[in-house]
């Protein structure tokens, strides 16, 4: 067993780290104070090849794989978690079309998604709940020529800025996935959500009222969309959330560690006090164990294991890292005493981000159920 990253992965890690520090770092202050969606940075993601990192070259990707994808998300989250969340959402339709798309669909959408020219979203969750996708109410009726979609989706990340959206709807045959292009009549973006965290990334409601979808926009096989959707959410949504939570925890740990070394109490840094040491040690433990689970999960993906086979590994990684992130953030806030929730240290923002990671790709309860099944 070789636990070392290979030469390429190390070069990638260094490059993403440098990029995040130089180009995202200077924006953190502003993004936390007055959140906005930084389209310029998204374009850079595309330019540098981050978005299509697991997509074959023929479709505009780099084919470096999932561990590379995870490393990229982690390094960006280390500097600013909300921007790492972009990948969690944008890569969902990318994966869905790559897995189940026709040649025409792949050629039409994948290169543009990889380059960042198109932004994508995946609309599965409905007001009735996301944890039980089969209970969805959005309907797709076939009128002989085209599909007519009616329904509502909730908490759809990036829908507001997306050029293409993969969504699920029930037909007579069952759960099915479709593609809708921005501007299609009857496809509307609803109100924007007001989550406390991940504010730089827009999350909104989406409605379909008599939205006409051409037959070439059917993705995959009619009625066989449930398995594909669960696979996509697992392979991309949950894994990205794990990488994000990991990077976020590392970011907050650095802040707490640095503070502990500088803050003087009773004549010496509080780092010298046992309770502080224990707190920091526990944070480190969460991070290191989370890292092992997350990297292993991605490594197995690259080995060709299907999302179904990896369901438990993915759930474990996501559970430990996302719950861990909440603990790291709240412990850090404790450690910083009166400075804990001040704007200056950004930890409270990261705590909010961490809370909003819990429902992303499936709540912790779902993760636990998956682990034991």
């Amino acid at each position, binding site marked *: 067993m070789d636990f070392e990253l290979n030469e390429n992965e190390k*070069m*990638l890690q*260094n*490059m993403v780290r440098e990029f995040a520090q130089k180009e995202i770092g200077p924006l953190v202050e502003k993004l936390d104070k007055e959140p906005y969606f930084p389209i310029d940075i998204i374009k850079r993601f595309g330019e540098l090849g981050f978005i299509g*990192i697991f997509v074959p070259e023929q479709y505009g990707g*780099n*084919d*470096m794989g999932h561990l590379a994808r995870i490393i990229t998300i982690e390094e960006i989250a280390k500097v600013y978690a909300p921007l790492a969340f972009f990948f969690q959402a944008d890569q969902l339709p990318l994966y869905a079309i790559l897995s189940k798309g026709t040649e025409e669909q792949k050629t039409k959408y994948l290169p543009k998604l990889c380059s960042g020219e198109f932004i994508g979203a995946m609309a599965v969750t409905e007001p009735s709940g996301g944890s039980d996708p089969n209970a969805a109410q959005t309907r797709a009726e076939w009128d002989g020529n085209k599909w007519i979609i009616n329904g509502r989706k909730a908490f759809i990340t990036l829908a507001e800025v997306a050029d293409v959206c993969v969504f699920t709807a029930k037909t007579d045959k069952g759960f099915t996935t479709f593609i809708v292009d921005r501007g299609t009549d009857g496809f509307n973006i609803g109100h924007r959500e007001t989550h406390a965290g991940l504010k730089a990334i827009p999350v909104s409601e989406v409605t379909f009222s008599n939205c006409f979808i051409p037959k070439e926009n059917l993705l995959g096989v009619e009625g066989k969309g449930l398995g594909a959707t669960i696979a996509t959410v697992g392979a991309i949504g949950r894994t990205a959330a794990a990488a994000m939570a990991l990077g976020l925890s590392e970011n907050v740990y650095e802040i707490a560690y640095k503070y502990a070394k500088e803050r003087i109490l009773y004549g010496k840094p509080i780092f010298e006090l046992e309770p502080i040491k224990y707190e920091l040690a526990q944070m480190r433990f969460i991070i290191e164990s989370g890292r092992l689970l997350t990297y292993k999960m991605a490594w197995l993906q690259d080995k060709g294991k299907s999302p179904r086979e990896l369901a438990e590994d993915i759930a474990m990684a996501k559970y430990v890292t996302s719950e861990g992130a909440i603990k790291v953030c709240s412990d850090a806030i404790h450690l910083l005493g009166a400075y804990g929730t001040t704007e200056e240290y950004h930890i409270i923002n990261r705590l909010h981000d961490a809370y909003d990671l819990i429902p992303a790709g499936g709540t912790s309860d779902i993760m636990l159920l998956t682990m034991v099944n």
Partner: protein
Amino acid sequence: MNLIVLVKQIPDSEYFSKLQLDPVKHTLIREGIPAVINPADKCAIELAISLKKHHSFKVIAVSMGPEATKNSLKKAIAMGCDEAILITGKEFSGADTLATSYALSQAIIKIHSYSMVIAGNVTLDGSTGQTPIQVGEFLDIPTITNINSLSYHKVDNTADISRIFRGVEQHMKVVEMPFLVTVSQNFNKPHLPSVMDIIKASKKDIVTWGIRDINADKNQCGIKGSPTETISTTIYKNKREKVVIIGADKNAIKIFVDNIKKWLVV
């Protein structure tokens, strides 16, 4: 036509203040300190790549160092260099700038045909700025240091160069190829390689040359070839008082003014 870029791998300068010495050997402990391409050398690479784009040069990165230097040479390739050569071997270790320049120039002589040698003006670790000039001397080619701009004219094989020297902006024309220039770390903004660049670089091999490959005299390389030697190294811990006060209130102003008065008299 070939463009040669000299590259040095150094410890990341962010860690300079955390450097430790081996208590027995009194040498620097480099383990655990990430290594990077010297910043001015990155600018040299960037200049070479932009010349390559406009005039279809072949860019060859050359470095002397231990095996680990391959990391930086891979990065040089990811940035766009076509080839990378590492001069390595125990005969080269412990070299001062003269011995380093000798080895580098022997490698360049072996490459044989080239239009330009581009180098960073100074490295952040040793900061002597001597090596590129000495390479130029060994190769007996015109050398211009700390340039501001360079434009190459393929039509007559000349280059227009400007630099600021002794407070004067000089504009020069080089009519004799090859020549050597150095650039500072402010010369340009080196680009980040993309994921695709990294993947392509990983598929390229770094060429390694030993002392025989470059026909070098072993007495002019490494410690043997170094007229200067280090007799002691100590970690410098600054002895500043580091009294820090917070705020711009009357008290702060008073302390500021009082200290100035006090220190001016000493």
